[in-house]
């Protein structure tokens, strides 16, 4: 066949294909995205941005900063933390009492609180919320916090229709009876897991409740487009008069740190994290520095050592590791956004021990300890760490420090889930980078959870065990008097520091920057900042 015969037809086909493509493109481009809901002119709308999508808005399911930030805007708990601190203040509960032995807690509810669907909030809604968390079908990450309520185990196992230890004698009273003393139980009720949810709405939407949340908090969900944006609007019937001061909050989703910064510079968002690359510039620029906010969070970063794996079975080696690593240099590596750690408990935590000296940088002493332990030429070890850029930089700094005392580190970056899984297996991971963020402001949340014998195979990832340490924890746990309680925990912490299962690295400091027109924002050391009392002064719209 003569190919030329066919040719004239093809440009036509090509043109047709191009035209079709152009049409499809134009059509699709016109439909790109969905317009954000229009707030009336002059409305007080706070614009935020985040990289990750919000995992969930269902308080029974969420257990991360992003989910909690929005859950605490949509839902109310019986009690909550004050805006800037970790003292418990009333939320829906007007008052509460605890029995002297910390086994019975009674809460009296306000009578003027309504869900945004109009129904009054009653004590039964709190009981339902906690039963929902305890129900295995919900797969809640919070179930462990409420297992101490009498009858919780029977309910979770299907042997009872309700939790016997939660009583609702009238719509405005709820009583929790615990199977053992737990003075910090009220803190567990301040977690979003225990927020009131309307049973009828959960029943209607089932697992999709997260997309149709109804709460009694200061804001209501208006729009949530996965990967794009989440929009909250003011709840006009919120029980605190004059709150919230904002008409809405718009969170752009999927915006990486650099893009957040660009948007902040153009005024398109009102609050932003500060990317490491621009942090020095921000600190040197007085105009920008004046807009920054910082807070020491209740978090500890550490290098865990497996106390069951040689050479870390020898306390001299573990002490040598602590002396060999320069924590000040580590903090410098992260732009000074941290405080060198002196022990397990961070400085913002009640019960913190300011007199604890920890391990200063002393490589000569580290070499001496290694020599005494039978490692005059050091040793080689593999350190597991989450595969993330900051962790790699920190690990390289630690690698350099340890090389000076003869310890050669091999870095093994892995995904977070595999890392977590591996460190929970006995005698598997010799060294690992990790950290812990407080769930509630009590030393038990660090010492009990991370270092007690009961947590082997769970959160005690360094497989640490000291019977004196465990005995002190057992003595401290039921005590309601903070002074006696904290004294025992301080003593326990001194044992853990003298026989260190970790290299105590640093306590992170969170920095944020706000636009000059944002007012009333306060950072909290343990929870995402609440936006109820934030307001905006007049400002130019972003171009």
């Amino acid at each position, binding site marked *: 066949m003569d*190919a*030329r015969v*066919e*040719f*004239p037809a*093809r*440009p036509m*086909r090509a043109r047709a294909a*191009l035209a079709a*493509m*152009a049409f*499809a*493109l134009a059509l*699709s*481009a*016109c*439909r*790109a*995205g969905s317009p954000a809901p229009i707030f009336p002119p002059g409305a007080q709308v706070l614009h935020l941005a985040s990289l990750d*999508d919000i*995992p*969930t808005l269902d308080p029974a399911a969420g*257990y*991360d900063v992003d989910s909690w930030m929005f859950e605490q805007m949509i839902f109310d708990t019986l009690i909550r933390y004050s805006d800037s601190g970790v003292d418990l203040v009333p939320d829906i509960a007007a008052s509460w009492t605890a029995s002297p032995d910390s086994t019975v807690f009674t809460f009296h509810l306000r009578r003027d609180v309504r869900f945004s669907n109009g129904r009054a909030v009653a004590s039964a809604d709190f009981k339902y919320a906690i039963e929902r968390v305890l129900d*295995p*079908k919900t*797969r809640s*990450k919070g*179930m*462990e916090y409420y*297992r101490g309520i009498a009858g919780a185990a029977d309910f*979770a196992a299907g042997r009872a229709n309700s939790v016997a230890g939660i009583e609702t004698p009238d719509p405005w009273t709820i009583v929790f009876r615990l199977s053992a003393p737990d003075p910090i139980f009220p803190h567990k009720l301040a977690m979003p897991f225990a927020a009131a949810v309307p049973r009828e709405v959960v029943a209607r939407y089932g*697992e*999709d409740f*997260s*997309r149709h949340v109804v709460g009694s908090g200061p804001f209501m969900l208006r729009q949530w*487009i*996965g*990967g*794009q944006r989440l929009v909250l609007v003011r709840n006009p019937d919120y029980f605190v008069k004059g709150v919230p001061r904002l008409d809405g909050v718009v969170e752009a*989703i*999927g*915006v*990486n740190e650099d*893009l957040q910064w*660009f*948007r902040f510079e*153009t005024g*398109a968002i009102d609050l932003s994290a500060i990317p490491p690359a621009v942090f020095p510039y921000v600190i040197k620029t007085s105009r920008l520095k004046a807009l920054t906010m910082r807070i020491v969070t209740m978090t500890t970063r550490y290098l865990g050592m497996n106390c069951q794996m040689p050479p870390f079975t020898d306390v001299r080696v573990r002490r040598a590791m602590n002396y060999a690593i320069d924590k000040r240099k580590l903090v410098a590596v992260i732009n000074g956004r941290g405080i060198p750690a002196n022990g397990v408990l961070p400085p913002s935590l009640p019960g913190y021990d300011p007199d604890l000296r920890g391990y200063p940088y002393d490589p000569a002493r580290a070499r001496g300890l290694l020599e005494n332990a039978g490692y005059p030429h050091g040793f080689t070890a593999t350190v597991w760490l989450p595969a993330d850029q900051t962790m790699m930089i920190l690990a390289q700094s630690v690698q350099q420090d340890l090389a000076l005392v003869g310890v050669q580190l091999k870095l093994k970056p892995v*995904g*977070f*889930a*595999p890392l*977590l*899984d*591996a460190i929970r297996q006995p005698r598997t991971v010799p060294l690992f980078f990790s950290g812990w963020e407080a769930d509630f402001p009590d030393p038990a949340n660090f010492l009990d959870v991370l270092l007690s014998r009961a*947590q082997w*195979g*769970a*959160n005690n990832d360094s497989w640490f065990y000291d019977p004196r340490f465990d005995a002190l924890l057992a003595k401290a746990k039921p005590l309601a008097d903070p002074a006696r309680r904290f004294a025992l925990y301080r003593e326990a912490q001194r044992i853990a520091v003298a026989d260190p299962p970790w290299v105590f690295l640093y306590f992170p400091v969170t920095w944020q920057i706000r636009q000059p027109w944002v007012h009333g924002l306060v950072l909290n050391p343990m929870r995402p900042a609440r936006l109820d009392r934030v307001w905006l002064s007049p400002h130019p719209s972003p171009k």
Partner: protein
Amino acid sequence: MLAYVVRRIFFGLIVLAGASLITFTIAYVVPADPAVAVAGAKADPQTLAVIRRQLGLDQPLYIQYARYVDHALHGDLGRSYIRREAVTGLILSRFPATAILAISAIALSLLLGVAAGALAAAYRDRALDNWLLVAALTLVSTPVFWLGTLLLIGGGLYLRWFPLGGFDGPLSLVLPTLTLALGSAAYYSRILHASLGEALDQDYVRTAIGKGLSRRAAILRHAMPNAILPLVTIAGLDFAGLLSGVVLTETVFNWPGLGRLAFEAVFNLDLPLIMGTVLFSAALVVAANLLVDLLYAWLDPRIELGAGRN
């Protein structure tokens, strides 16, 4: 023709079954407990045991796989462990954004690539050809995340002509499209330059020019239709890749597409979402391959589909 299409669809289904089996196996043999991914770092062993039972992770692997396939055949790809939403719904909600970006990027890269390739071939071994070669090599070597960031800083931050990322209207499409298209266009231009150069040396083109046809007409009407076939193959596969999502570009531009969804799924070890996105991407590649073959026959009637074995 119909028999060919039916046969290809049949083999496509086998590929999909294989992809699902391999993904499922890889996902479940990695040393990580999905229950930990669901419950978070702080969960106690009791909570993990409850969640394993709830998710059916305590069942033998083959039962878990059989159940997955059964549900998948009914259009149910399961529920995301982390988001607790239907995977099918999540994928479908992200696909339009990806499709729009893929269509615009492939259209622009073909437009620029064909134009540059044709020009370079027409002016072979002359200054323009050399300049186009330098430009193409530069663009091919430029990392997408870097080019994207530069375009954002230039077009979004300083000039403020385009939005700083996001998916809000036609203007937001410009910078991510350019980011994806410039590199591909450069690559396409080099492929077309080579194949067009070869075609221009063929007797039928020389004959056409000898008979008095202009060089431009000889290139466009005689050489180009034959030279463009390799480009169709590559662009077809590229298009399938674009439809499966482009993680870096989507991340740089805050584009809510499939690539970021898949990345988040892998990062969170969200197995149902990993499986769903892989299967969906595999289906797109199979479909794109089939379409490319059909397009081949449409562009060049000398190609007879399914006749190879005779």
